[in-house]
């Protein structure tokens, strides 16, 4: 083991104190019964510990719902960020309609209301055979693990993108990039060209890029009517709610949509994108959403399939088909016929938590289907949506029905606000 600096040692030992100090609902009480192995940051005395990797839509929900359903289970949530920033509604930050602060929440509810132990750290590796999660300074053991790390970008698939640094943003994980993209849009010349590049499916939030197109186009229409938005879509058509988005775009003559235009190269110095067919597109602001895969920790732990991108899971328990006692929820998963959405991640978090609680109590996991709803803001005041309901048939998730709102309206914007208010509280409060 690498030698620790004094400060690292103090940090590590205070983490141990913080964890063991809170532990003990179901422990034998008093002195530790397990002798700690070197590097074990907090010996698992209760034998009923769940570790959750990632405090986003799926992971934070799962952590809360394990504790709600069985307070005797110890839950440790690993999340490097001290704040939760919502991707849903973040396209409204790009257009200046909402502030990033209005999408930013703390983790106090999980900690104080639900007794989730939160460590502000990244998991660095998973060892399923040893039932261990590695952190920078040691490891923690678990009885069941819930992996919810979201997505990472395949930046290497677009030549020059890595070298472009923060001159070319994705803003596909809400946070500093979202704010920076809003700034780039604001500072763009009045007759400038904004180019939005949509990655090939599967990626996080199927309608998200088209909602972003609406928001950028709305901003240009109201603030820079001489400017232009070009959407370069790697897919053959708008891949979510195509008729509704195309109807919404009628209001934006400054929006030009080009299907089957996959961006393969970025030249940040020349401000030029190149498509698969060799077309070159000049830009003043480029917003390139790169191709995606499950986040690094899931790939590195080999929870992904042969495509090396996404994790296949059991449709009832969300247990990985590749690792025992390891469950995966949210955008990292594939194979369940659901979109990569926040509503789905929240839903999966609840179901996986319920499965874990039942399995730890020696009972079978109940068969519960997830739900989906994606509201999309097509202007500053109007919203349309897609809704999916599912059932479980012979152990598999199958769709009962998909419905679209008949069009866009201010009423659905009120429904969207109600959804956001409710689901943020469902995840964190």
């Amino acid at each position, binding site marked *: 083991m690498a030698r620790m600096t004094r400060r690292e040692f103090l940090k590590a030992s205070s983490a141990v104190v913080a964890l063991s100090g809170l532990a003990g609902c179901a422990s034998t009480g008093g002195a530790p019964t397990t002798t700690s192995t070197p590097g074990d940051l907090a010996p698992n005395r209760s034998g009923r510990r769940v570790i959750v990797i990632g405090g986003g839509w799926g992971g934070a929900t799962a952590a809360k719902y394990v504790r709600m359903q069985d307070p005797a289970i110890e839950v440790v949530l690993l999340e490097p960020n001290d704040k939760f920033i919502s991707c849903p509604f973040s396209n409204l930050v790009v257009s200046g309609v909402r502030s990033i602060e209005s999408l930013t929440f*703390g983790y106090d509810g999980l900690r104080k209301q*639900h007794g989730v132990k939160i460590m502000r750290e990244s998991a660095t590796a998973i060892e399923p055979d040893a039932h261990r999660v590695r952190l920078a300074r040691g490891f923690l053991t678990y009885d069941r693990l819930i992996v919810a790390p979201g997505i990472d970008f395949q930046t290497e698939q677009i030549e020059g993108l890595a070298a472009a640094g923060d001159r070319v943003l994705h803003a596909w994980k809400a946070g500093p990039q979202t704010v920076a993209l809003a700034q780039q849009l604001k500072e763009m010349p009045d007759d400038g060209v904004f180019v939005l590049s949509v990655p090939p499916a599967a990626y996080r939030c199927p309608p998200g890029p088209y909602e972003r197109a609406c928001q950028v186009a709305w901003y240009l229409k109201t603030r820079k009517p001489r400017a232009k938005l070009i959407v370069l879509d790697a897919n053959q058509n708008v891949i979510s709610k195509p008729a509704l988005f195309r109807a919404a775009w009628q209001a934006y003559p400054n929006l030009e949509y080009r299907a089957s235009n996959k961006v393969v190269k970025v030249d940040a110095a020349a401000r030029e994108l190149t498509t698969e067919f060799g077309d070159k597109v000049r830009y003043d602001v480029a917003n390139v959403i790169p191709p995606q895969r499950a986040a690094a920790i899931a790939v590195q732990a080999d929870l992904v399939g042969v495509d090396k991108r996404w994790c296949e899971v059991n449709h009832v328990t969300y247990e990985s088909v590749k690792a025992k006692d390891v469950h995966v929820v949210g955008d990292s998963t594939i194979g369940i016929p659901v979109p990569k959405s926040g509503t789905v991640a929240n*839903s999966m978090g609840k179901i996986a938590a319920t499965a874990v609680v039942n399995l730890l109590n020696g009972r079978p996991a109940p068969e519960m289907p997830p739900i989906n709803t994606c509201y999309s803001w097509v202007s500053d005041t109007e919203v349309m949506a897609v809704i999916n309901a599912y059932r479980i048939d012979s152990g598999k998730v199958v769709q009962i029905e998909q419905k679209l709102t008949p069009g866009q309206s201010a009423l659905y914007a009120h429904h969207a606000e109600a959804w956001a208010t409710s689901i943020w509280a469902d995840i964190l409060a």
Partner: protein
Amino acid sequence: MQAFVLVAALAALVPATAAAGPVDTPGFTKAFSCSACHGSAGAARADAVPILAGMPAWYLKKAIDDYASGRRPSPEMEPFSKMVTTLGVDDVAAYFATQKREASPIKLDRAAIASGRTAATQCAGCHGQDGRGDQAKGTPPLAGQPAGYLLNQMKLFKADKRSPGDANLTALKALMKGVDDPTLANLAAYYASLGR
């Protein structure tokens, strides 16, 4: 500093009593997907969706049935009602009926409440003096529902867009057609204020 404000704002989204759902609460798992829009244990904190906590089981079942069959059009609730039907509507209805109702935090206008009280005499015959509803007359409780939700439903009745053509609602819709929109807003504020 801003962070404190935000944390406080989120705290305002939860009912005072944290929902505690031990694994054995009947219906809990069948109903938990609803909290994505209707709040924790049906205690909606938003203005545009109904509170389900404390809703009589007979009415919730009727609503689910009307949505699932398409009689009461709603792009959100039609698919989810079909799902509820596959899961067992009785369990879901019983779960929400036994949840404690928490007052909605949405602010109301005093003047609107006062005007609404006067206008509500024409509703009491069917919905009861205190807006508590009456199963015999097929009326749901209105008391304490968010004003935004109530107002929208009244407008839908007025335009015959909620359960269009339903013969049982002819009297109600005829009544709504004669009430102007500002009065409907006052009625919504009044009923929302009851039971707080």
